[in-house]
């Protein structure tokens, strides 16, 4: 029971955090604050990496759920 509560609390924090990060990446995709002389990030690539991180984290949490005692 305690481990279940702990697990879902972790999921909540990681889920909220990933949502914030994806929204940041989405916002930065449209921003135009590039410093002169610095190669600008590829916005599609930035967003793709952010989504990939979120997806891999979700997969890890799914395996963790299956492994709960």
């Amino acid at each position, binding site marked *: 029971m305690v481990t279940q509560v702990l697990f879902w609390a972790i999921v909540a924090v990681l889920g909220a955090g990933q949502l914030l990060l994806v929204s940041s990446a989405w916002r930065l995709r449209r921003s135009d*604050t590039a410093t002169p002389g610095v190669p600008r990030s590829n916005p599609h690539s930035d967003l793709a990496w952010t989504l990939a991180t979120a997806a891999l984290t979700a997969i890890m949490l799914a395996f963790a759920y299956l492994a709960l005692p």
Partner: protein
Amino acid sequence: MPRTPLRRLALAGVVATLLAIASGGLVSATGSAASCPTWPVCAEALVSPAQPLAWLAFGHRLAVLTAMLLGLAGAAAALRAEGADRAARWLLVAAPALGLLQVLGGALMVHLRLYGAADVSHLAMALLVLGCQVVALTALAQPPAAERAGGRAARATRRLRSLAWWTAGAVGVLTLALSARAAMAPTAATAAPLPANALGAGVMASSLALGTMVQAWRSRRGDQLLIVAATLLAVLTAAQAALLLLPPAAAGLGVGLGATVWGGALALAVLAARRPLPASPALTAVAPARPSLLSDYLSLTKPKVISLLLVTTLAAMYITEAGTPSLWLVLWTMVGGYLAAGGAGAINCAFDGDIDLHMGRTSRRPVPSGRIARRNAMVFGLTLSALSVVVMLVFTTPLATLLSTLGIVYYAMFYTRWLKRSTWQNIVIGGGAGAIPPLVGWTAVTGQVSLAAVVLFAIIFYWTPPHFWALALVKQKDYARAGVPMLPVVAGEPETRWQILVYSAMLVALSALLTAIGAMGWLYLVAALALGVLFLRYAWLVWRRGDQASIWGLYKYSLLYLALLFAAMVLDRAVL
């Protein structure tokens, strides 16, 4: 030395705590606590005066009582001494509070029948109490130097101080390991789950103490006190490590010596920071203007970065379900890990020569400064990498070899050649390279990857952004000049500070996952949450203030956090 009542009380507190720890070591080694079942008064000693074991236990309790009373008196005096050093005053107040926690925690663990944890935590807390008192006493006795050192002198001082702190930490671990070894004597069978192998800790502590001594001789040749203290520290640490040759039951004798060396190392660290620099030109005379070729090649391997990677590898090896690995396996995994990380680092130096040239932090590296040709750095890196594959393949498991090789390719090619120059997600995704070492350690022992090992990977993966973005915030002009699209350069400071906070919160949550899936116990969870709260505090300060002090605070604490988090895993596995 003691001129004021506060200093006298601090000194008396240090002596009493040392006596309490030394007598506690003897009690643990002889199992004499069993001769004195009544608590807190040992009536058996008074009723049967012929029982030496009961008297030993009684003497320990008297020493603890004396130490507690002196600690309380010191705290009261510190609260009144408004003109004294602020940090010293608070440390003297903290000492009896920690003593009280020690008693309560010990009672709770005994009540829960966690005898192994009680034994280790009892001594650990006592060492913390002693540490508070020693640091306070040294700070009271040695006020900070009036003038601040700059340039090379400041670097040398930082190095000496850092070595002394690390030595103190290693001596603390060695002392705990020696105590555990003593407690495993047949007279104390309840302590059977404690770790008995203190050899690694002994080697580590002796090496660090030797390094401290060498650094003191190099940088403070005119300061007799520091030279003598550092030399004595090296000799005593070696003597303490030599106690491993004694039978386990006699190892309790080493607890008192260990506590003395622990206090000495802490005092040396404080002295190194506060003593004025010697007037003689020794400091500037000893450091060569140009590094040797050997040290240049060594620096290509980025030894400072590797040390943290190896800590995570080592810790992972000791927390698998396969039990304690053999020392040979640990040794060869460390050698292979160093070669792999060092090889990847050298290849990175060869590829990044153009970037390093434009950054103050890296412009003096061997490749950008022209001391080592880019081609030679590449050959060196590839050679180390090839050697690492051979070492890992021969002495560890195929999967560990594969992961170690993957780490080299990930860092040297995927991160260095592509990610670093193309996206502000560079250190987020690139953090995967630094997260591979615990997987290597884990698979070197078990031969397979499990969920717990993946969580270790994820912890370092999520730790990387707050850590490196803190550095990037400080060095963002360098990164902009070098053309590297780090997040502060591309998206600005406020966005970076915000993402640091978000990643920090996720990191702290993720660190608790090991307990949720049953891979770690509650001891680890408490440590992870305590360390995490502090991490969040630093991240919060970075977000709210964003000044250099808070950013450096986060950067430095993040290093300590990772090392302590993995140490907590080992401790949890060892005692529960």
